[in-house]
């Protein structure tokens, strides 16, 4: 009986996936920019970034979504943005504030000696960061970012409040038409659960491609093969 609503539901799912993907990418960008701004030695920038991070973390993403959608256009000179744009913007910015702390922690976790050694070898600051510090920091950053991304997938559900026809909004409509409340919400819950699992799987794939993890794996592989060869040679 619910099968007739499947096309609508799939459309909602597509919207949810699109919003989730673009806001996860946007969040990654915001995280890097805010995180690096937080870490600069130039005090006005780092203090400004720190205050922005604290402000964005201060209230739930829902508050910011409502404020940007309903209150911001009332401020003279401010634009009225479309629901989709507001959703992606707010999700990226607020999650980016959390992501910035992940970036800061990840970069700080790389031992100082690494950067010092790189500069001793004559690498420029930029080269040091991109070729030495960042590859190692990513090993810390990506797993933490994965759980943030999973949270973001769940958070996309709030965009139904500003009129985006995402999965949850469609489900609400179907509930009103079909009266089969339990089935609709149970189905939607399972779809979200599936989306979270897919996100977690994708990030695990991504983790495997990180430079440091690849190096570790290669090291393990050679150790195993050399161990094998000694076993073969010995008798």
């Amino acid at each position, binding site marked *: 009986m619910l099968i007739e609503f499947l096309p609508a539901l799939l459309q909602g799912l597509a919207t949810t996936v699109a919003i989730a993907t673009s806001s996860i990418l946007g969040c990654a960008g915001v995280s890097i920019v805010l995180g690096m701004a937080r870490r600069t030695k130039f005090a006005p920038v780092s203090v400004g970034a720190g205050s922005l991070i604290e402000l964005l973390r201060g209230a739930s993403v829902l508050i910011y979504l409502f404020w940007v959608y309903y*209150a911001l256009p009332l401020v003279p000179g401010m634009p009225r943005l479309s629901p989709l744009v507001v959703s992606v913007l707010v999700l990226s910015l607020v999650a980016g504030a959390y992501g910035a702390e992940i970036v800061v922690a990840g970069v700080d976790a790389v031992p100082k000696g690494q950067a010092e050694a790189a500069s001793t070898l004559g690498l420029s600051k930029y080269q040091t960061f991109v070729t030495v510090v960042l590859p190692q920091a990513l090993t810390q950053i990506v797993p933490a970012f994965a759980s943030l991304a999973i949270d973001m997938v769940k958070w996309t559900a709030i965009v139904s409040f500003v009129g985006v026809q995402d999965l949850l909004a469609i489900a609400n409509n179907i509930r009103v038409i079909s009266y089969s409340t339990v089935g609709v919400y149970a189905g939607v*819950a399972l779809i979200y659960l599936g989306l979270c699992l897919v996100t977690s799987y994708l990030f695990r794939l991504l983790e495997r491609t990180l430079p440091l993890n690849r190096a570790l794996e290669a090291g393990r592989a050679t150790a195993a093969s050399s161990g094998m060869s000694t076993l073969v040679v010995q008798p």
Partner: protein
Amino acid sequence: MTWDWTYAASIMPDLMFGVFVTVLVTVACSVLALLGGLLIAIAQVTTGRAGHRATRVIIEFFRGVPILVLLYFGYYALPEIGVLLPGYAVGVIVLGVVYAAYCSEVYRGALMTIPSGLRDAAAALGLSTFATWYLVLIPIAVRKSLPALVNYVLVLYKQSSFLFAIGVPVLLAQAQLAGYQSFRYLEPYTIAGVLYVLMNVPFVLYQRRFGIKTRGGLS
């Protein structure tokens, strides 16, 4: 539209009621989440492999489904199968149970790091199983988990704004109502946002004071 101070002042009583409800709901959810999480963790540790798997599935479910979906399920779907609860109850139970799932992971981590020598010592002293848990293991686990748990209380406080979706008059709901009634949205939403951010300050100060580095995540 410019800022209207008299209007802002006139909606303050309504908004303050929202603040009161927010605090109330946060406290109720926290109690449920902190106690429930402990019980789940104990169940997970003591029931062997089958129990461990079962609790694992439940925890993953509550961590993988958006709170809004669970709230709607509790509010719209449960009455259909004969469970009619007021919005307050649905909200507190949903948030409490979801964060009990999160907190149980914290407790479980703490329980696992307790050296087994302590259990042996408790057994050597002839403590019963109940006394071992009540007097030895739980106090240690709770103390170890405290920083992370405070974090989850902070997250719960922020998430309590979601309850407006099922008609609980939290601060966000009160702001929305004030906006509807007067067709002025700038003041209510802005004041609500500022209040939400300001009410964080005690938590942040607490965390600073105890040098807590692990800062709460999104959910």
